[in-house]
């Protein structure tokens, strides 16, 4: 925090509005990972505390295992033994944490593709198209994700017939489709918002250069929107990834379902907390760097228009 006060005129330049009463509203620029790590590491007492807790847990854990006469493995051993299963899934099928990531990739790809068209539909000059796109966007934006999952998991057919041959539709494929719908609606809003935020001059100059409306959208408007759309799009990717464990409720063998199976099989209360924390740390390690990158891009793109 420096003490120099920003002169009034630069506020005017920053806000670019007719009434420069406030600074632009921006969500907190998060500290980069390295800085947060350093912050925590520089707290020597906090680090020592965490280390002490971890060591205490390991030693208590080992002591309990000892006192049971070596008949039961310690909690740490148990967790490490099950880790490959929870991460890769049962051998020979898609599952585990990798399935969470796979579902998030595919749902994002489908959702982005559909959402792009829906977003363009929202600025269509044809009245019914515009209204229908708006309605579809609002419906899927305002539905809870779990409700959509239930709806499409239970009402889509569990097998399809193609050319006289029956194919079973795997649960995760239906789940992927169901998860891609809210992504579609939110991408649609991102596209619409980004297009609306471009200066009208862009449209007018394209018109004066005799571009057709289709040409204007695809080669002038959308390329400029990519920069504005990227940070919120990445943010939605994180939200989607954090929602993938919901598919375990519908019986898909993702990391959450497998973790619960492990807990039921072991039936030991002392592994509950470490095992949940272990699972959460994977999601954290996957999502946190993306979140930091998003915030950095946001700050970089926010400066110049």
């Amino acid at each position, binding site marked *: 925090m420096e003490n120099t*006060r*920003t002169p*009034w005129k630069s*506020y005017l330049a920053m*806000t670019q*509005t*007719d*009434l*420069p*009463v*406030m*600074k*632009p*509203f*921006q*969500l*907190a620029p*998060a*500290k980069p990972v390295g800085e*947060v790590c350093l*912050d*925590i590491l520089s*707290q020597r*007492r*906090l680090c020592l505390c965490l280390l002490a807790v971890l060591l205490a847990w390991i030693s208590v854990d080992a002591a309990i295992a000892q006192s049971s006469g070596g008949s039961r493995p310690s909690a740490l051993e148990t967790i490490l033994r099950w880790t490959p299963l929870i991460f890769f899934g049962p051998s020979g099928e898609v599952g585990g944490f990798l399935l969470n990531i796979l579902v998030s990739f595919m749902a994002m790809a489908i959702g982005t593709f559909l959402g792009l068209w829906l977003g363009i539909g929202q600025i269509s000059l044809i009245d019914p198209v515009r209204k229908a796109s708006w309605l579809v966007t*609002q419906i899927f934006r*305002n*539905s*809870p*994700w*779990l*409700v959509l999952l*239930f*709806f499409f998991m*239970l*009402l889509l057919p569990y097998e399809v017939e193609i050319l006289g041959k029956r194919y079973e539709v795997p649960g995760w494929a239906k789940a992927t489709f169901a998860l891609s719908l809210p992504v579609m609606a939110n991408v649609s809003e991102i596209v619409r918002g980004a297009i609306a*935020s471009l200066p009208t001059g862009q449209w007018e100059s394209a018109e004066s250069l005799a571009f057709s409306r289709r040409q204007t959208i695809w080669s002038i408007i959308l390329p400029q929107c990519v920069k504005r759309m990227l940070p919120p799009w990445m943010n939605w990717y*994180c939200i989607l*990834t*954090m*929602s*993938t*464990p919901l598919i*375990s*409720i519908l019986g898909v063998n993702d990391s*959450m379902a497998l973790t*619960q199976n492990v*807990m039921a099989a072991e039936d030991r*209360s002392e592994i*509950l*907390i470490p095992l*949940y*924390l272990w*699972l*959460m740390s994977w*999601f*954290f390690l996957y*999502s*946190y760097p993306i*979140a930091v990158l998003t915030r950095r891009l946001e700050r970089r793109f926010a400066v110049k228009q």
Partner: protein
Amino acid sequence: MVWEWFRWLAETKGINLTIFYDDWDGGRFFAGVWTTIHLSTICIILSILIGILGAWLQKSRFRIVRGLVQAYIQFFRNTPPLVQIYFFYFAVDALLSDYMGISGGILGSYGWAVISLSFFAGAFNAEIFRAGIEAVPESTIESAESLGYTNAQIYRYVTLPLAFRVCLPALNGNLINLVKSTTIAYAIAVPETLYVSNQIWSDELNVTEMMYVMWLTYLLLVGALVWVMHRWEKSIRVPGFGRR
């Protein structure tokens, strides 16, 4: 009567909406909707309180407090809410009841749903409030100082009202998301709309009809909230700030 019409609809057309003519099904369905409403309300209030506290602690003089608040925010933002709710309901509850020597858990599923969802949404609220407070320019505060306001008065009459109006759109987005997230409480058997709908369609075997009823109910609930919040947002918008 209208109820008779729904019975007729079930008998002749096979569209079986038991909740409109069967007292028992109707009773539990609307109790479920009511549970969703008060679960959402309590979580909204608690998450706003947590957000205010978090935003305030982020300004703390002590580095360790700031570090802990930041750790809390990043932890809840970057882990799946479903795993969080399981963690609280199964792991933390077992640990605490073991420790305190109470058998059968200290809080029911409703209590843990409230705690877990409030912490989840509170982490987002803390960042939103902090950003709002930081958006109030120094010059406005200086003007208030030059008019003889004390620090507490500046906070109460200048900073907070402006910050609130600026962060309202982001706050609304998060609160609407919170209402949608209350469906996750299904996983720990809180009898909210999704859970009771599931019970009804298991008992009555009217999956398709109940599915549409449930979806429509959520759309109405969330849609009403979106509409009210949007109106409110528009009416107290700071003029000349932000895009259109």
